[in-house]
């Protein structure tokens, strides 16, 4: 009988460690699951015996998960790493992937979708025996999709761009479905390709996924490339410019309605053009306030050494507003007073992230 794979689980929560041990040892490959409650102990165990996989929490006392992963990447390059965190923050996901982890899962998602988690881990454990190269790449999404199709892969690509999450289903090198931002099929695929940056991960294939895309992947990639070229170098024909502008406005209005926001004002840096507004009239004064609020908050943050400005939230009896700095722009997003306050930041970030794509 083959020696079972060894998995090390690192978490400062003893109950979680017990639960993980019980759950992981029931996986089809019946791995040998060990646990460690501190980074120091985990590193000592990794030094003393070979492990196939490390499952690591992020929030821990003394040495946090990101520090552990940085050390592990350097000292044990063969070790597969998975982050299992309770922190629903895209920044941590990006930072973990930047450190070269193989998978990032939220604990809550893992509990909701244990079957998918098990498949992901099994494919990771198995992949180590197949050899191959791994590393951190910075490639365009088109390249990644073309590579997957050329190698006739069956996989699900999960693409994350800040608060936006999308999925692309590939079966035997053929594109069968895509989902993004409430859209599905070819429209979703085009939308995903318009994203300028993000992180991606491979999830196990879903062969039973219903096919919604019948066009070939090359035809869709070509259409997207043409659309992106047209956006980057708009035709000089006035009708064409008007049409493109009209399409963009319709798309943004649809975005606003879908998220349930009342209005959006995108304010460029001083002297860098006019504010763009949707859903509100005579927005000049609000645009001025947005620019001022972002500037005052940034300056104050620097003076009191409070770290970078995340956002400014405000409300009165009639509305709730959110000021979000994004690149060289500041956004003011207005919401009705009935929108739950705890969902405002996520929804506003999603809207802002979609705005320019």
């Amino acid at each position: 009988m083959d020696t079972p794979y060894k998995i090390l689980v690192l978490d400062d929560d003893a109950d979680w460690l017990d639960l993980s041990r019980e759950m992981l040892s029931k996986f089809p490959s019946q791995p040998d699951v060990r646990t460690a409650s501190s980074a120091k102990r985990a590193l000592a165990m990794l030094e003393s015996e070979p492990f196939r996989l490390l499952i690591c929490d992020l929030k821990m006392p003394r040495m946090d998960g990101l520090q552990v992963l940085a050390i592990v990447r350097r000292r044990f390059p063969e070790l597969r790493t998975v982050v299992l965190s309770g922190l629903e923050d895209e920044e941590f996901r990006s930072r973990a992937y930047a450190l070269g982890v193989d998978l990032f899962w939220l604990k809550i998602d893992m509990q909701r979708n244990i079957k998918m988690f098990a498949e992901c881990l099994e494919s990771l454990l198995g992949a180590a025996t197949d050899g191959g190269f791994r590393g951190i790449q910075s490639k365009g999404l088109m390249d990644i999709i073309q590579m997957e199709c050329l190698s006739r892969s069956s996989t699900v690509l999960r693409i994350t761009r800040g608060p936006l999450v999308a999925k692309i289903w590939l079966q035997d090198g053929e594109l069968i479905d895509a989902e993004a931002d409430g859209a599905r099929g070819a429209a979703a695929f085009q939308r995903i390709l318009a994203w300028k940056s993000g992180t991606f991960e491979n999830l196990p294939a879903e062969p039973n996924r219903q096919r919604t895309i019948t066009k070939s992947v090359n035809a869709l990639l070509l259409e997207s490339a043409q659309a992106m070229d047209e956006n980057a170098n708009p035709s000089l024909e006035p009708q064409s410019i008007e049409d493109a502008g009209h399409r963009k406005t319709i798309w943004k209005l649809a975005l606003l309605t879908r998220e349930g926001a009342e209005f959006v004002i995108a304010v460029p840096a001083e002297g860098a053009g006019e504010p763009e507004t949707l859903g509100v009239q005579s927005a000049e004064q609000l645009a001025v306030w947005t620019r001022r609020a972002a500037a005052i908050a940034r300056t104050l943050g620097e003076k009191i050494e409070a770290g970078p400005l995340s956002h400014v939230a405000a409300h009165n009896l009639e509305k709730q507003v959110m000021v979000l700095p994004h690149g060289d722009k500041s956004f003011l997003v207005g919401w009705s007073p009935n929108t739950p306050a705890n969902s405002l930041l996520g929804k506003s970030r999603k809207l802002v992230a979609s705005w320019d794509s």
Partner: protein
Amino acid sequence: MGFLKKLFRIFRSRATIQPLPAGSLSVDRDGQIVTSTVSSAYPPALLQEIGRDVLVLFREARAAQMPLAEISLHFGSLRITARELRGGAIVFLFPQSALSPTPT
């Protein structure tokens, strides 16, 4: 002894890590601090700056036809929540840890 005193004075004058303010303060309509529960070790000038800036934000929002009742400034390591109080404001300061931010 005199030498050591001089040496410590030099060390004290060097840049040190500024602790984050925690507590609350109230400011009148002129930006003067009326009451404060923030540690007296925290520079009063910076507290005054916080008070004045939130008043400016309230005032300019009113001028932009959007009078606000409450404003929260969220930074990486601090949240400042201010409530409008008859032209002045009451301000709450909540230090945040990167891994455990308090909810909005």
